[in-house]
Structures are given as structure tokens and as C-alpha cells.
């Protein structure tokens, strides 16, 4: 049974873990077996929302905030004067089970400062996951941080028990990493990523041949970049993300707007606002790349290295590519319809389904729930109606911004609002 003293540890170690955003529990399907406890659903469930509106789906804690390193952007850094604490293996297990049974969480996200050395730390993380799986017959979601520098054998074991593993790059470029985390090497992060990628791919292949083959990190790996702490532009950030998606088979790249926590002169001063809009734009761009079939350099390029803050990247792309419009939703390909501002992924599919019954007119589109006031500038219909033709992209942008001033909603997906 968890003892009262765990209370204080929990506030310290949950507080220290909260800046890590890679915490969604989706993309793993783990069935409840032998009438045990829990399962993991493909879509994940947010059980609560913080007052800043972020989803709480996992018990996200550090095993300890002791650390031998001194990364400037991190609250747990060696030189920071904070209270230190460490959970025992059993305490983390008890907390996870107790929270899970009450339906507070989908599972555990366990990260850690590095005490002593990487292997010593990693070994404990693995022990917790192993205990949950083997002793508690727990089938809920487990995400472990892979500690850079930990041995391959430990990473191998971690993958046997965890659903997802992540190594955070934290800084989008090597230069920034050198500046802010002098103890760390880019390669220390890349190496475990590469190892995990190969293992994940290898196990998947094996599974195809033999369904009894063990699973390995079925939800894949993810990573996180802190943005706004250093000078990188969005092109560098998205370029890095693209590299992770292409080369490391990354499931997700998370972007974490830097929350100033330090008087270090290398970093934005305390009180500097968190770049939430920029962060949201990056997620939108990431979304376009992963789900809408956009290429990175359609979204940012040397002529325009940063995302617009006032409009979303899809609208931005459309305004730069007016030659692609107007699009006739009654005949166009799904892929092209998805690219029309104001029409999301699901609405595009609905349009393609509904047009089999009749020729769609503007009123039909409005019924389908698309953002018509935005989409109308990019639409053509066979039936004549007042199309606001001959507007320049600047005029369209003005119109859109004026009509949607206050209710500037995320129009791609609900999920975006989570961040």
C-alpha cells in the first residue's frame, strides 16, 4: 500500500515531468489477457484536462529528479536548487495500479533524471515495467523514456514490456544542444533511436512470419523538441521532424513550447511568454505532413522559413498556390479536396461519399459542417453562384481574418486543441 510520504514525492516528481509533452496513449492495442487488469485502446483516452487545457491520460512522472547532467532548459539539472526525490520501484507500481483501477489514467509514462549512470537508471525503469506486466498482470499502456547512453540489452528489455519508447532530442539542432546541454551529444540521442528503429522493424517482420513472436514497443517510438528556447526557424524544426519520420520511423514528434524556468542568460528570460501559437502551428504543419500528404517544403522553404502565426499552414499554402484553385468538389480527387482550406480530413471523405447521390451545392457543404466562410474562396461549382473571383491572396486572407476574428478555431481536427 502506498504510504502518505508518497504524497510529497508525487508533487515533486509530477511537477518535474510536466514539461514533457509526449504523453498520448494512442496507437497501441494491447488486449486484456487472462482476466487481468487493463487494456490499451488504439485511440487513447484523455481522462482529465489540466487547467491549461492539456490532456491527462497517463500518470506522467519522473522516477527521480536527481541528475548528474546540467542541461540548461531542464528543471532537474544538477545546478538547479530544487528539492530532490526518488520513487522506489514498488511505489511507482502501486501508484500506477491504484490510479488505473479507479479509471484515472490509461497507463504510465515514466521518465527519469540520470542518477549515477544511464544503465543504473534504465535498469530501474525496466524493472517497473516488468513488474507491472508480470506480477500485476497489467495490460494498460506503458511509455518508458529510453535514457541516452543506456546499453542495448536494457533497451531491448524495455521494448519487451513497454508500448512506446522515446528518446527526446530536446534541441532541434546539434548546435543548440551543444550550447545548452554541454554534457550531451547529438549522437547519444540518435544512437538509441536507431537501435530502437531496427528492433521495432525487425520484430514486426518476425511477427508477420510467426504470430507468436514477441512484440516490441508496439506503439513505436516518439521524440520531443523544445521550441522557442533557441534560435531555430520552423524550417529547421520541421526538417528535423521530417528526418525522424523518414529515417527513424518515428510515430510522433512532439513540439514543446519552452516555458522559461531559469535565469540562465543563454535562455529566454523568466516571464517570456510561452510560444503557444507557434507550437500549435507546428502541430498543424506536422499534421499536414503526416495525414494530408503535404511535403515539408510545400509548407516551409528558404523563401519562407517560418510558419505564419496569423493563419494556419494549410491556408498559408493555399494562398501561395492560388493556381491550384478553384477546386470543384463534385469532381476533384479526395487528395485535392483535403487541401482546400476549411475542409478537414473527415469532411473531405464525406463530400466524396455524398456527391454520389447528387451534385453538391454550397448549402450541402454547409450542412456537412465544413468551414464554408473560409472554403468558399477556393471552391468552384458547376452550378453558377456568386463566387468571389478575382480576389488576390492578400484580399482573401484579409476577408478570412476579419470574418473569423474571435472564433479562430482549429479547423483540422479536435486533436489539435489538445496541445
Amino acid at each position: 500500500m502506498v504510504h502518505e510520504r508518497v504524497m510529497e514525492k508525487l508533487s515533486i516528481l509530477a511537477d518535474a515531468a510536466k514539461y514533457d509533452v509526449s504523453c498520448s496513449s494512442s496507437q497501441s492495442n494491447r488486449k486484456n489477457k487472462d482476466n487481468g487488469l487493463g487494456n490499451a485502446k488504439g485511440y487513447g483516452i484523455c481522462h482529465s484536462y489540466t487547467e491549461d487545457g492539456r490532456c491527462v491520460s497517463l500518470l506522467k512522472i519522473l522516477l527521480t529528479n536527481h541528475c548528474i547532467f546540467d542541461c540548461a532548459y531542464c528543471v532537474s539539472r544538477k545546478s538547479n536548487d530544487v528539492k530532490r526525490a526518488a520513487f522506489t520501484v514498488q511505489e511507482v507500481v502501486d501508484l500506477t495500479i491504484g490510479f488505473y483501477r479507479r479509471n484515472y489514467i490509461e497507463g504510465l509514462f515514466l521518465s527519469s533524471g540520470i542518477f549515477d549512470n544511464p544503465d543504473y537508471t534504465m535498469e530501474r525503469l525496466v524493472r517497473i515495467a516488468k513488474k507491472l506486466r508480470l506480477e500485476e498482470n497489467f495490460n494498460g499502456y506503458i511509455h518508458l523514456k529510453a535514457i541516452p547512453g543506456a546499453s542495448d540489452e536494457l533497451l531491448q528489455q524495455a521494448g519487451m514490456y513497454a508500448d512506446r519508447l522515446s528518446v527526446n532530442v530536446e534541441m532541434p539542432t546539434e548546435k543548440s544542444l551543444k550550447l545548452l546541454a554541454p554534457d550531451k551529444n547529438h549522437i547519444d540521442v540518435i544512437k538509441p533511436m536507431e537501435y530502437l528503429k531496427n528492433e521495432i522493424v525487425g520484430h514486426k517482420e518476425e511477427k508477420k512470419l510467426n504470430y507468436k513472436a514477441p512484440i516490441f514497443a508496439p506503439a513505436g517510438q516518439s521524440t520531443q523538441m523544445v521550441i522557442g528556447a533557441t534560435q531555430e526557424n520552423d524550417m529547421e524544426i520541421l526538417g528535423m521532424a521530417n528526418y525522424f519520420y523518414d529515417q527513424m520511423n518515428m510515430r510522433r514528434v512532439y513540439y514543446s513550447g519552452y516555458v522559461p524556468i531559469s535565469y540562465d542568460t543563454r535562455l529566454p528570460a523568466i516571464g517570456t511568454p510561452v510560444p503557444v501559437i507557434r507550437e500549435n502551428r507546428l502541430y498543424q504543419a506536422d499534421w499536414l505532413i503526416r495525414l494530408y500528404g503535404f511535403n515539408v517544403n510545400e509548407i516551409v522553404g528558404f523563401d519562407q522559413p517560418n510558419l505564419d502565426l496569423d493563419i494556419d499552414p494549410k491556408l498559408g499554402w493555399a494562398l501561395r498556390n492560388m493556381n491550384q484553385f478553384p477546386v470543384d468538389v463534385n469532381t476533384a480527387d479526395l487528395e485535392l479536396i483535403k487541401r482546400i482550406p476549411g475542409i478537414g480530413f473527415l469532411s473531405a471523405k464525406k463530400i466524396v461519399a455524398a456527391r454520389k447521390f447528387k451534385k453538391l451545392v454550397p448549402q450541402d457543404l454547409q450542412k456537412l459542417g465544413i468551414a464554408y466562410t473560409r472554403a468558399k474562396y477556393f471552391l468552384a461549382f458547376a452550378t453558377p453562384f456568386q463566387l468571389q473571383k478575382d480576389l488576390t491572396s492578400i484580399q482573401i486572407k484579409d476577408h478570412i481574418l476579419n470574418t473569423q476574428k474571435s472564433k479562430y478555431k482549429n479547423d483540422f481536427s479536435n486533436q489539435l486543441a489538445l496541445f
Partner: protein
Amino acid sequence: MTQVIYDGTYEGWVTAVFEIYEYKLQDIVFAKNEASADLLFSTNHTVITDEVKVKRVLSGLQKRLSKNGFQGLYNAFLSETNKIEEIMFRYVAYVLSSTVNVEDDFSNNDVLELRKAIRLTGKESHRMEAFVRFQLTKDQLYYAIVEPDCNVLPLIENHFKSRYADQRWLIYDSKRKYGIYYDLKNVSTVALQFNTESNSSKFLAEIGDEGEELFQDLWRNYFKSVNIESRKNTKLHLQHMPKRYWKNLTEKIPDIKGRI
């Protein structure tokens, strides 16, 4: 105008559909259990749920709808939104009169309204999967009180059954006064009088397991610790966690000493 009175169950409603055709009733309005006293209604027609009729209607629909579309009709019923029975009837009439599958005909108002209701039910059941908060009693029953807008217990039963296979649990809908109970083997529907007035502290003192208070406090503590003050966004917070759910959410209820 005819008022069709049925027992409030889905089967009852399906029987009513059959009889509307059978008796060629016109201008129908549905009523649950008892006739509305409104003088507007010239005739009343009372429906007795009939399995044979239910089967015939359902198999007709099954032939003309996809698996999802068929299930969707039931989900729409559970939404309990205003006039849903009438919308469903018009929708079913459209489905039955058409030779092709019409469930994607989004330019049709009834199709659209039905979809809306399905979405609403879906959203609410997803939320209930998230917002159920079990409390452990002295006799090792995990119980939770919920108060959803839509009648979603039938839809979340399997989720909880496959997730909490090794603990006894009860989820009670205080609005509709019934619950679903899992006894480590099966889930059954139970109608019971539950004193939902008993707030958390009273519960803890009287029937709560001894570890229960600690876990609730740990959860509140966790909830507080993960908040990032400099990113506070109340609008977003409320959008995701509407106030109507708060009274059954541990993290939004003051602890036993009255602290939040």
C-alpha cells in the same frame, strides 16, 4: 395527428415503426409511456412491444444498412435528443423506401440529423469512458456515479468489462436511476436506489475502503502538480471538461477536509 405511445425502449420504438405501417398511421408524434394531455392529438395509438414485429423491422433495416448504419440507429435512439424518435422514423421510412443504401446521403436532412445524434451519443460515451471515477468500498467494489446527457451505459459496458476484468464494479446513472454491475463474470443491468447525495467525504467515512481517501488525495495532488500556470487556458479547459461533469470528478471535488 396520431400520438404513438410506446414503452420508452428501443424495441418498443421499433414495434411502433411496424405498427405505423401496419395501421397506416399519419402525422405521428411519439410519446413515452403515457399520452400527452395536449388536446392537439385527435387519436392515441398504444404500442405493446412485440418481438416478432421487432425482428421483421430490424431484418429489413439490416438488409438496407451497413453494419455501422444499423448500429447507428440504436445509438441515435440513445442520444435522447429532442424529437429523435420522429427523426428516426422519417429516416427509417427513407431507408425502407430506397433501393440503395442512403446512409451517406448527407444532403438529406433526416440523414444529417440522425448523424448528429449518433455523433452526440458517441461523444458522450467516449467522455464517460474517460470521466468515470471509481471509488473503492470496504467490500472491494469499485463504484462510480455518472450523469450523462445521453443514455450511454449500454454502449460503454464492454469497454469497462474488458478493461476491468479482475475487479467488481458498478457504474450508476443517477439521471436514469439504473446501473451496470460486473461481478467478475458478467455485466448485468441493475435498478437500484442509490443515495447520490452522499458526497465524497461521507462516502469515505461510511463505506470507503481505507486506502480510498489516500488515492483520491494523490490524484488531486497529481492533477494540481501537472498544471502549468503560465499556460493557463480556462476556455480550453472548460471545453474539454464541461462543468456539468465536475460533481462526479474526483479532481474537481474538494477533499475530505474541504480543500480543493
